[in-house]
């Protein structure tokens, strides 16, 4: 389990992380979402042992990450700004990573050439931005990390390559049980692959839940008739006699309550992740639209 507890970090007078607590369960695909400037990259730099927190703790399986090479050897990190030595080629970076990560998988590295089709002996700095991103995936996946931390990973990739990269990540999760943390400022990007989501803003965690919990705890209902008492309605619209409600509670529980009132018509509809966040956070004065649009 990857965990941040009450982490605070200040840059000069600016509080980048404010008592942030975050838990990434083992084997989860965790989406860290937030608008630009929410503190996602800062949080990730703490999780990868780059920054030292002013207060709080950051651990992986109970062991500290900061200045702990043994723990860091199990973490693969792809930053938003790709790291490579200025004149290095893929082969030189392979040799370097091989020295740093004892579990480096040469066979996988060779296989990934088929997926990414990157030149072996051209300096990485000559690659396009998208190719540099691919090179980062190529190298980091070959390190066989137990935890993969990706900061805005598909920025700069074309749709085909996005799909391919996400596919690789998911197959890695499926085959090796890798824990994945992906940050993005776009919720739609994460909807299909994440099973846990955390929403950050102003250095704080607004909401952190598993997708199953969220989807099971909020339902959208269309009803013709009286709204039964005891329903926790988060949002209500009406079109003629047809009312559309977003209600907190499981589908079974909500159905039971509505059926008890015997309405003229009712139906339970699926909610998208987007809608859940809008209605969950709707009462809070956050710019939720920033992470959805």
């Amino acid at each position, binding site marked *: 389990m990857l965990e941040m507890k009450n982490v605070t970090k200040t840059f000069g007078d600016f509080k980048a992380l404010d008592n942030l607590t975050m838990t990434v369960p083992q084997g989860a695909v965790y989406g860290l979402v937030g608008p630009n400037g929410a503190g996602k990259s800062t949080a990730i730099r703490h999780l990868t042992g*780059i920054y030292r927190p002013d207060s709080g703790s950051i651990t992986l399986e109970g062991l500290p990450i900061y*200045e702990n*090479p043994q723990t860091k050897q199990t973490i693969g*990190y792809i930053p938003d700004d*790709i*790291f490579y*030595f200025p004149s290095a080629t893929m082969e030189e970076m392979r040799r*370097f990573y091989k020295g*740093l990560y004892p579990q480096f998988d040469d066979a996988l590295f060779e296989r990934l050439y088929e997926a990414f089709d990157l030149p072996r002996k051209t300096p990485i700095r000559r690659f396009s931005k998208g190719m540099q991103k691919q090179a980062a995936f190529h190298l980091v996946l070959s390190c066989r990390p137990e935890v993969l931390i990706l900061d805005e990973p598909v920025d700069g990739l074309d749709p085909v390559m996005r799909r391919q990269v996400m596919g690789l990540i998911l197959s890695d999760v499926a085959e090796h049980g890798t824990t994945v943390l992906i940050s993005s400022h776009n919720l739609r990007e994460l909807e299909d692959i994440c099973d846990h989501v955390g929403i950050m803003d102003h250095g704080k965690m607004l909401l952190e839940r598993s997708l199953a919990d969220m989807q099971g705890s909020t339902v959208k209902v269309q009803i013709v008739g009286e709204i039964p008492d005891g329903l926790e309605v988060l949002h209500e619209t009406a079109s003629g006699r047809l009312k559309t409600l977003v209600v907190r509670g499981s589908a079974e529980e909500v159905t039971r309550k509505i059926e008890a009132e015997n309405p003229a018509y009712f139906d339970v509809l699926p909610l998208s992740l987007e809608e859940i966040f809008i209605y969950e956070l709707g009462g809070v004065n956050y710019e939720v639209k920033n992470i959805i649009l």
Partner: protein
Amino acid sequence: MKSRISSCKAAAFRKDITRFWPVWVGYILCLIIVQVLQSNDDLNYWYAANMGEGIAIMGVVNLCYGFIVAMMLFGDLFNTRMCNGIHSLPLKREHWFGAHVKAALLFSLVPTALMALFSEAVIVLYSDMVAGWTVPLYWFIASNLQFLFFFGLAVFCAMCAGNRFGMAVVYGILNFCSILIYLLVDQLYTPLLKGVVTMSGPFEMLCPVWQMVNKRCIDFDRVETGKTFVHNGIEQREYIGQITVVKEGWIYIGIVAVIGLLLLLLARQIYKKRNLECAGDFLAVRWLNAPFQVVFTVLCAAGFQGVFMVFFGYGDRAVYVLPVIGLIVGWFGGRMLLERSTQVFRVKNFVGFGLITALLAGSLYLTWLDPMGIETWIPKVGETKSATLRMNYRNGYTTEVPAEIADLTRLHQLALEQDLEPHPDYSDAYYSPYSNDPDCAQIILQYTDYNGWLSQRNYYILATGESGDLMRKYTSRLDVLFPDENVEDAADLRHTLRDAEVVRVNGIHNISEECMTEEFLIALADAIAADAEAGNLVQSGVFHQEPILEMENPEYNQYYLTLDMHGEDFWSNISIYADCENILKVLEPTGVLESARQEYANIYG
């Protein structure tokens, strides 16, 4: 798990070596090419001699190379992408540091070792210098100790700075601030205290590259073997080169190398605590901002004032205008660097600028008030180990005898009482033995106390009365006139002049060979000794107001003559005046005075 970490460290070290190979390979080639080019085609003596003397030059080379190596290896800290990328990898900061330091030492050790081996082969094959084989060894050790210091200092600067420019500025400040402060004190504060001179020694001590360039580690000499050989039909004496190890130079290099090592350890500690988010900032350590701002401002003031005055000489008014310009540039330039913005002209910063300007003005006013009595200070005889009286930098008298020190402090007191203003034509009056001012001469008094502390005062003093008598007593002496020949009395001078091959007046009027007899030289030695004893050989025209040669044009009516004497082992030159009766009496029969008179008549008559 330990072996895993070792392999990580090895990977980082290998990367350092391979990533920057062009630099250290280029360094090897430069060393060898420069050394071969300056050998003057003389592989017997000059190759080794130049290599030994090159230790001083290596001080400058290592000043640059140490900085370049540190910037290459630790430059990743200044770039956010590289800094974050590297520190996300599974290595502790101390491991990165260790790998970089090991690589840096190899960057110096390998090129210098190859250079030393190459030179060793050349010296063994072509040179018969005594113990010549040790020269490359000394060169190798000295170069690497110098490198250790400059690299340690540069790494320390890298840890204090957040970007490359910041590192360069901090490195420059730490290397040269003492010289800039000396310029500031010498040209801004010292002139407010009459007669007081700022001694450059303590400031030079704090400038390592200055010391390395000026302190020798090995001395070279050619000594006679006692054998002769025939070259182009002429029998010549055979010489052989030999080296002497100068302990003082090695002690200095050893001390700075230890300081370099300590700086490296300090830098390692700073690195462990470094906040990596500072990458790109000017300084990495926040609390250094305020001291940096003050130091940078003061040094800019010193730089503007000192450097412009030294190189361009803008006149007296510029002395106080340039520091103010320097303060403005320093204060607001410093803010711009720290804030990485040109938007620094805010009220808060103007208040700061006002404070530092007031501080400078206040310190100048306080210096002028002289509450510590520096201007009127006269050393106590009992606290003074030695005292020196000079009229110029060649001829001076140094004494440790209390009675004589008392005489010199009395001269000091007379100078303060006379309170003469400097002659407007300062430099002429100072360097020439003939002063344009008929009344006063400039003197230099130096005192060394029992702690080795040296102080100096420069005054103008009357050449007449008690001060004139004291001057004649201590500057018209044979050991002052012949400082390089160990001449104490007439007998010593006879012994020295016995070997004279040439005696001439005013550089061109030689005493003829017929006149250059042993009797003539003895008579000349005795005459010089007698005039010195009489106090007539003070090497300044203000003590000798009568013209030696009467000219028709009264405007050019005061002349002195120079008497050059040289033999195989000595070369000396003194000025003679109209009151040097004994010398003139000996020279008159030889006809050289008449020749000189004719020459003056042709030029000025």
